[in-house]
């Protein structure tokens, strides 16, 4: 099957470049903006298959939200011995200042980016739950827009769910928790890796795009100050800066991109922050192991989606397994993200292995080990020829009165044929994700 669109690859990529679809990378301490390479062959997900993913994703995000609420509240799951206490308190995502603070409508995971891969046998596995500030939805949004312009016939021929409603869903998510006032997208500024996305979302949702300098706290409320000095009350902030930098008066004192006292305003319920501070405790790689258990614990249901087979060297039994099957596993440092701190055991030299095993024994809590999943390859066009590459799927789940799964997603692929790492910060490319409507 040849999709007409793929013959327009050059036009599409030229247009994406013209619209500034870029991704920032810091290399050797220098900021460089790179085009985010787009491949015109879409990932196609059939209607029934997506219905299955949708069910599993909703369930998973519901359970994660329950977990975060519990951890910063009653801590029942810890008391009941389902999640060991140290996995919570040693996690870098656990923030003590969030204890006892309930966000508007009890929502912590407003926008979740769940990373999945499909094995060769067709079964799906969740690799990561990104709950802090997951990025990427803007890329398939704008790519679809441009593809439709470049090849309108393609979308006449195929019945594809329209994904251009993401802005509407995002706006709804922000409005749902708004405590009264304007809606703001808070960006660290144009030297951020995802600045394109911040500005694109602001444009598409009608929210104000602001940096910390344009927001001030006065008498327990948050205000947006425009260029003329006029103040407007803010009721919701979709913040694209991490917890540590959000408020120097509560978190990292050195932060100059945050807003002093915004956390105190939030604590008093006078503004909504999306996503809620502190929810990194649930996207910790160590906590990931427990997500299927959370589904059973909070929802009393069997998990629809499975984790990649994961071992926790913290448990003696798992440590034994890891040492016995070391060469077959991929090891991940729980404190790292963005494809960093991931090592494939079979690619280590003997000396590296020895050092790593010593480290693993010394700090068992720091690592998880996973079976290497044999991904189903997806074709990309390279020099006008189809060639297979590893790819994953980031599905976006937005939380309103119940979770909503966006009928699209970001498919990232590795450009290096030998690599499993698809992160855009490591030079990967992306594809549109088509969900068929019939």
């Amino acid at each position: 099957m040849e999709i007409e669109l793929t013959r327009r690859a050059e036009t599409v990529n030229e247009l994406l470049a013209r619209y500034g679809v870029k991704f920032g990378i810091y290399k050797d301490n220098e900021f460089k903006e790179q085009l985010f390479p787009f491949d015109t062959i879409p990932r196609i997900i059939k209607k029934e298959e997506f219905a299955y993913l949708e069910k599993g994703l909703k369930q998973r995000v519901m359970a994660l939200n329950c977990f975060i609420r519990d951890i910063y509240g009653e801590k029942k799951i810890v008391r009941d011995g389902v999640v060991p206490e140290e996995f919570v308190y040693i996690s870098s995502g656990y923030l003590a200042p969030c204890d006892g603070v309930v966000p508007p409508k009890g929502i912590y995971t407003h926008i979740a980016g769940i990373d999945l891969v499909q094995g060769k046998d067709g079964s799906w596995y969740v690799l990561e739950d990104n709950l802090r500030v997951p990025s990427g939805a803007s890329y398939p949004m704008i790519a679809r827009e441009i593809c439709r312009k470049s090849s309108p016939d393609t979308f006449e021929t195929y019945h594809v769910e329209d994904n251009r409603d993401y802005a509407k869903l995002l706006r709804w998510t922000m409005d749902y928790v708004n405590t009264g006032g304007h809606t703001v997208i808070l960006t660290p500024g144009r030297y951020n890796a995802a600045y394109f996305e911040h500005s694109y979302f602001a444009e598409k949702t009608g929210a104000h795009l602001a940096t910390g300098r344009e927001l001030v706290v006065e008498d327990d409320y948050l205000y947006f100050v425009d260029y003329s000095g006029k103040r407007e009350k803010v009721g919701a902030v979709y913040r694209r800066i991490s917890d540590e930098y959000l408020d120097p008066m509560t978190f990292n004192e050195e932060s100059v991109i945050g807003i002093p006292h915004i956390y105190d305003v939030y604590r008093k319920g006078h503004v909504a922050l999306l996503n809620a501070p502190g929810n990194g405790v649930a996207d910790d790689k160590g906590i990931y192991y427990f997500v299927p258990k959370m589904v059973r614990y909070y929802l009393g249901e069997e998990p629809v989606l499975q984790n990649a087979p994961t071992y926790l060297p913290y448990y003696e039994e798992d440590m034994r397994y890891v040492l016995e099957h070391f060469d077959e596993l991929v090891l991940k440092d729980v404190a790292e993200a963005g494809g960093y701190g991931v090592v494939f055991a079979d690619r280590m030299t003997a000396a590296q292995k020895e050092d790593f095993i010593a480290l693993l024994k010394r700090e068992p809590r720091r690592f998880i080990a996973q079976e290497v999943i044999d991904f189903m390859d997806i074709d990309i066009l390279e020099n006008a020829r189809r060639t297979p590459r590893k790819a994953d799927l980031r599905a976006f789940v937005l939380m309103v009165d119940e979770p909503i799964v966006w009928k699209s997603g970001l498919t990232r692929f590795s450009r290096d044929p030998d690599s499993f790492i698809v992160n855009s910060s490591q030079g990967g490319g992306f594809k549109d994700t088509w969900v068929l409507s019939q």
Partner: protein
Amino acid sequence: MKTLRFHYHMELAFSEPVHSHVYTLKCLPKTTGTQRIETCAYRISPESSVREGADSFGNRMLYGKAEEAHSLFQVDVNGTAVTDITASCEEQEATDCSVYRYQTPLTRPGERIGELLARCRERTGELPPADRLRVYTEAVHESLRYEKGVTDIGTSAEDALALGRGVCQDYSHILLSLCRADRIPARYVVGMLLGEGESHAWVEVCDGGRWQGFDPTNNVPVEDGHIKISHGRDYRDCSINRGVFTGQARQRQTILVEVTPV
């Protein structure tokens, strides 16, 4: 039981005027199981609109913004407290002490703390926690010589112990490190001490559902002469003053505390 009058004074002197000075202060003692705050009034200058709140540890906070240019920022707190450590059994707070069982970057033990703990263990054996604490408190007291200006707010327990000198904050961090390495939940406390001086720091440990204070700087259990202001996992959770301002000034902080019996 003691009735104490306290006066807490903090000032920041800036080398040049600063403005848009945003601050959060944790300097108000609160009523707990072992102390009752009868009166407590504060004054902040330059005057600005001040809000009250509480952090997740239950500490009282004052926060606000001094907009206009100033070279001196002053906080005064005056009040009376009735302290009674024998009343501590009735204390309702903090049934969940899990968060205080884990080391923080400031308390994480290294080789020196490991050695100190091993030496203590030779003496403590299987003693109950309260008795082990007396041994630890004394060991910390003896391992450090009190000296100002050699450590700062970022000095870890391990570094202070290696240096062998420090102030109440360092004594407390080392004791916290020992307790937590021994799986005893322990928290950092900031407060005021009978007499004249600066603010003080000590440690509370959770033993049998009840928090008990130990003061490693003075090698004593906490008694009625201690007025508690705040607690947290380490110094960082309790810092009395956090602030950001606009201006290129150096700042000098002075704290004066006076506690007298009534």
